[in-house]
């Protein structure tokens, strides 16, 4: 009896087994005498020992039960839920005015239990009448494994399809309600939104940002998120106008691609960002195609003459030149084996203003040489063009810098070659230029309504205010001047200023023949720059309208004009009468 109790309680508590051992040894130590008295005493002792052991054993068992009950609950519930994949419940994504861009919907997901399926072939046969694109061989193989109790067939089907499958009346098929991400606006802002995987987990763009910000909650059932929606800086109206005009431009100039961004200069908010060919956030596999990558943030390009904006700004800010300073640009510049000439040589010395409006390569090259590599580097660094930049939609492609900052690199860089940046990063740098020289941090989220109230990031002046004003004047002049390259971008009443850029498209081992990226960088209204647009056309062709030209002044500039004419009234820019602007 002692032994039995002992083994029962063994391992439950040490004290208990020690005690009972002592008991047993206590009994054995008694000298063996043939008297009845000692026999009674032994009996009594044995009784007492028995009672103590039983009490101890029960105590140990109840203690162990209590411990088990307290500790092992989570393990049990996890085991029950294990075969079913964890899904994520996500907050809605809305635009700056609260219009819906992405939401979770409850959708039935179809699964099979191979153990219950009666006729595998019949099931696959009948199922393919409702779901024609099902992989029959694959499904047969999965269903033949009778040890499995769970096989996904299709996740997130429409209620109509679910009803049809239900009507087939096949045993072993069942539904589970899952959350499924829906994008009511279709392909609108597809690149910015990114996409989710089959478990509703963000894998790119803003969707990934939501996950990393901890706003996506893991759920075991279809539980709609009660979190407040993620409010983007995008404006659906502006985004649509941008996408529409880019598509028009791409068609009109037979370009292989197009991209554009609209930025609020005062707050750094991205109001619209688009890249063509576009992607559908509901079809994540589309984004993996290289031609569909995000050309605004996900690719770096040598941008060409728009970059002269920064060279001229640097010259003005560093005090190397004034807008009226004259430079003799008649002689071509030698840079190593290359000779730098102007596209349209003026045949006379030009002022810095004219260098900008004529888009003179020689002129900007000379200004860059005067400044030298150190000051050039420092200036571009101040504008955050040399280091990788990121927004909430993910990191932008890191800028590609020249290996050395020698004479040749300095000259080519001055007019936008030899340094490749993501267009959004470039736009943000120029926004700083027009924000009175105060740094602009691009953001995809709506900031507070009042500009400059963001106390977390104090206003950081990087460029002199006079430079900012001078650059605004140059930009406006480039559009109003009859010889300005941007005159086709003018929109009456909205004081548009801008700069063209026609860059040779880089290819392996050099530049492609007759393939260019033409771009137009614009800001409006120029008397107090508030909005910035940057439009790029990839490999546009010469058309009758452009007189066979591919330059930005003939294609990207008119696209920008159409864009601004559409978005300026939406953005509430007060127009001035034509008489007042001149």
């Amino acid at each position: 009896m002692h032994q039995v109790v002992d083994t029962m309680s063994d391992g439950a508590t040490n004290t208990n087994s020690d005690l009972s051992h002592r008991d047993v040894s206590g009994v054995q130590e008694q000298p063996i005498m043939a008297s009845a008295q000692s026999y009674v005493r032994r009996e009594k002792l044995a009784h007492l020992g028995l009672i103590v052991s039983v009490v101890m054993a029960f105590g140990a068992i109840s203690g162990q039960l209590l411990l088990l009950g307290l500790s092992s609950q989570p393990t049990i519930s996890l085991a029950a839920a294990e075969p079913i994949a964890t899904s994520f419940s996500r907050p809605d994504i809305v635009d700056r005015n609260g219009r819906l861009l992405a939401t979770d919907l409850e959708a039935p997901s179809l699964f099979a239990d191979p153990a219950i399926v009666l006729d595998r072939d019949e099931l696959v046969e009948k199922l393919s009448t409702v779901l024609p694109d099902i992989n029959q061989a694959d499904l047969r193989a999965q269903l033949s494994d009778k040890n499995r109790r769970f096989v996904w067939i299709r996740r997130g089907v429409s209620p109509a399809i679910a009803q049809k499958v239900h009507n087939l009346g096949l045993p072993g098929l069942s539904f589970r309600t899952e959350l499924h991400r829906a994008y009511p606006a279709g392909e609108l802002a597809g690149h910015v939104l990114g996409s989710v995987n089959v478990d509703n987990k963000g894998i790119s763009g803003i969707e990934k940002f939501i996950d990393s910000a901890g706003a996506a909650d893991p759920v075991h059932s279809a539980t709609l998120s009660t979190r407040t929606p993620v409010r983007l800086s995008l404006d659906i109206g502006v985004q649509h106008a941008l996408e529409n005009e880019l598509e028009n431009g791409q068609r009109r100039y037979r370009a292989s691609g197009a991209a554009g961004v609209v930025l609020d200069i005062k707050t750094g908010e991205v109001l619209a960002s688009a890249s063509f060919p576009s992607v559908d956030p509901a079809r994540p596999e589309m984004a993996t195609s290289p031609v569909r990558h995000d050309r605004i943030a996900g690719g770096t390009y040598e941008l060409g003459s728009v970059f002269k904006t920064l060279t001229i700004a640097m010259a003005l800010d560093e005090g190397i030149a004034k807008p009226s300073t004259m430079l003799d640009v008649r002689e071509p510049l030698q840079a190593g084996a290359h000779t730098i000439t102007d596209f349209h040589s003026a045949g006379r010395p030009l002022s810095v203003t004219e260098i900008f409006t004529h888009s003179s390569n020689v002129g900007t090259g000379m200004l860059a040489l005067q400044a030298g590599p150190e000051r050039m580097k420092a200036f571009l660094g101040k504008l955050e063009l040399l280091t990788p930049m990121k927004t909430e939609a993910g990191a932008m492609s890191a800028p590609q810098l020249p290996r050395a900052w020698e004479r040749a690199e300095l000259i080519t860089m001055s007019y936008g070659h030899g340094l490749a940046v993501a267009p959004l990063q470039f736009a943000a740098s120029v926004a700083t230029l027009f924000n009175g020289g105060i740094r602009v941090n691009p953001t995809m989220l709506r900031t507070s309504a009042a500009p400059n109230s963001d106390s977390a990031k104090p206003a950081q002046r990087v460029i002199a205010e006079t430079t900012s004003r001078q650059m605004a004047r140059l930009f406006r002049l480039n559009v109003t001047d009859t010889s300005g390259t941007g005159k086709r971008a003018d929109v009456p009443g909205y004081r548009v200023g801008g700069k063209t850029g026609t860059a040779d498209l880089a290819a392996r081992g050099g530049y492609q023949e007759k393939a260019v990226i033409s771009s137009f960088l614009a800001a409006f209204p120029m008397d107090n720059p508030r909005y910035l647009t940057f439009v790029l056309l990839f490999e546009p062709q010469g058309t009758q309208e452009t007189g066979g030209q591919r330059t930005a002044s003939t294609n990207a500039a008119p696209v920008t004009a159409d864009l601004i004419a559409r978005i300026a009234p939406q953005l509430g820019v007060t127009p001035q009468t034509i008489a007042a602007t001149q």
Partner: protein
Amino acid sequence: MRLLNLAAFCFVITSALFLYGLNYETRRLEADVMAHERAVQKARSDISVLKAERGHLSRPERIDPLARRLGLAPPTIEQLPTSESLADLQDPAIHAPGR
């Protein structure tokens, strides 16, 4: 003593009945709560579907061609009065009686 026993017995019976009733009432309420929770869940789900539908129907891609077919277009500068032109405006209706 007998009276006391009787009273105790009655008390036991009534409290047993009361508890029994309470138990049933609780179950009924629980079922009620669950029905309401289901209704809330259903309503949430419906709201999300309706929201998505509204978003889908009001997507600019659809509204744009519809609006243009109705003869609408983005506003031109001529349609937007400036402060100067408003000052010049002499609207006789403003001074009309009965306003």
